């Protein structure tokens, strides 16, 4: 495994740590179906984090640790803000997984692409909007018309 493989995996892991922390904040402001959706997505990020950690460990690297806390991109004190935070977290995770897609290892490239897709779908389920190029810089999501499904 090359140094660039390590870096991409660590960057994805760091993004997952941040997402897991952020979903804790998201869930704290939601109830009912939206809270259940947050719990589901939080669980999916934990599975991905575990996958990244064991991959890094099996290759002799020390997986980057989660921070105790993360600064939120904006204050979250309402349901709409919590929903926006969830979509924001997914956008960040999608960008990190595009780093895996750039690797030469076919397995990591394919898994990275699956994760980009999963993150984009979660982002859309929260925001009701799709992006033309999820994970790539300079995105403005458009095409709103649907509330997140329960």
């Amino acid at each position, binding site marked *: *495994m*090359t140094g*660039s493989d390590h870096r991409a995996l660590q960057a994805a892991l760091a993004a997952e740590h941040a997402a897991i922390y952020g979903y804790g904040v998201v869930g704290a402001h939601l109830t009912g179906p939206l809270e259940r959706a947050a719990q589901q997505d939080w669980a999916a990020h934990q599975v991905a984090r575990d996958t990244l950690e064991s991959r890094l460990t099996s290759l002799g690297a020390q997986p980057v640790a989660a921070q105790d806390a993360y600064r939120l991109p904006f204050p979250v004190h309402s349901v709409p803000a919590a929903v926006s935070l969830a979509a924001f977290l997914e956008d960040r995770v*999608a960008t990190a997984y*595009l780093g895996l*897609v*750039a*690797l*030469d*290892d*076919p*397995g990591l*490239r*394919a*898994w*990275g*692409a699956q994760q*980009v*897709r999963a*993150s*984009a*779908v979660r*982002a*859309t*389920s929260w925001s*009701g909007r*799709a*992006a*033309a*190029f*999820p*994970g*790539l810089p300079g995105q403005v999501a*458009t*095409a*709103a*018309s*649907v509330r997140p*499904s329960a």
Partner: protein
Amino acid sequence: MPADPRRPHPRQPPPNRPRPPRPRPPRRSVLAAVAMALPLLAAGCKGVGALGTPPRPLPDVAVLDHAITAEKLMITRYHAAIAGSPGQAAFLAPLLAQHQDHLARLASRLLEPKPADAARSPAATPAFPPASALTVLHGAEEDAADALVRHLAEVTPSLAQLLASIAASEASHALLLRSRGGTG
């Protein structure tokens, strides 16, 4: 599930080592080829055979061609759906616009750009019956997302990222279409 590993081009170093960006062959092989050719030329032989077989066409071009064709087809489908379901036009128009963005970015990657004629005009395509338009589009988006990443292992890192991003966009479209009433 992981993509099938593809055998590397004979001229490329094994995948686990850092390698120069495609398509240039490593400098060593270019210099070696030149060095081999000189004594043959000096001896009066035609030295072309000593340089080996010409490289195959790059996978990027073939994959780009397929991706561009797929986007043009998708754009045609959206025009047909909008023509058949005017009530859905406001919902579908932004998704169509994103496919036009996809097409533009893919086309810009070709060294010899194809004409920007894009999709056939809406009048050339029969309109869908309204009840099935969203369902057809939902299935088309899911299928397109799957197809785009089928050959990810064969292309350059930068193109792989673009394809994965567009596939993710299409999967997002599929979700919106399903939520709107298109069951896949």
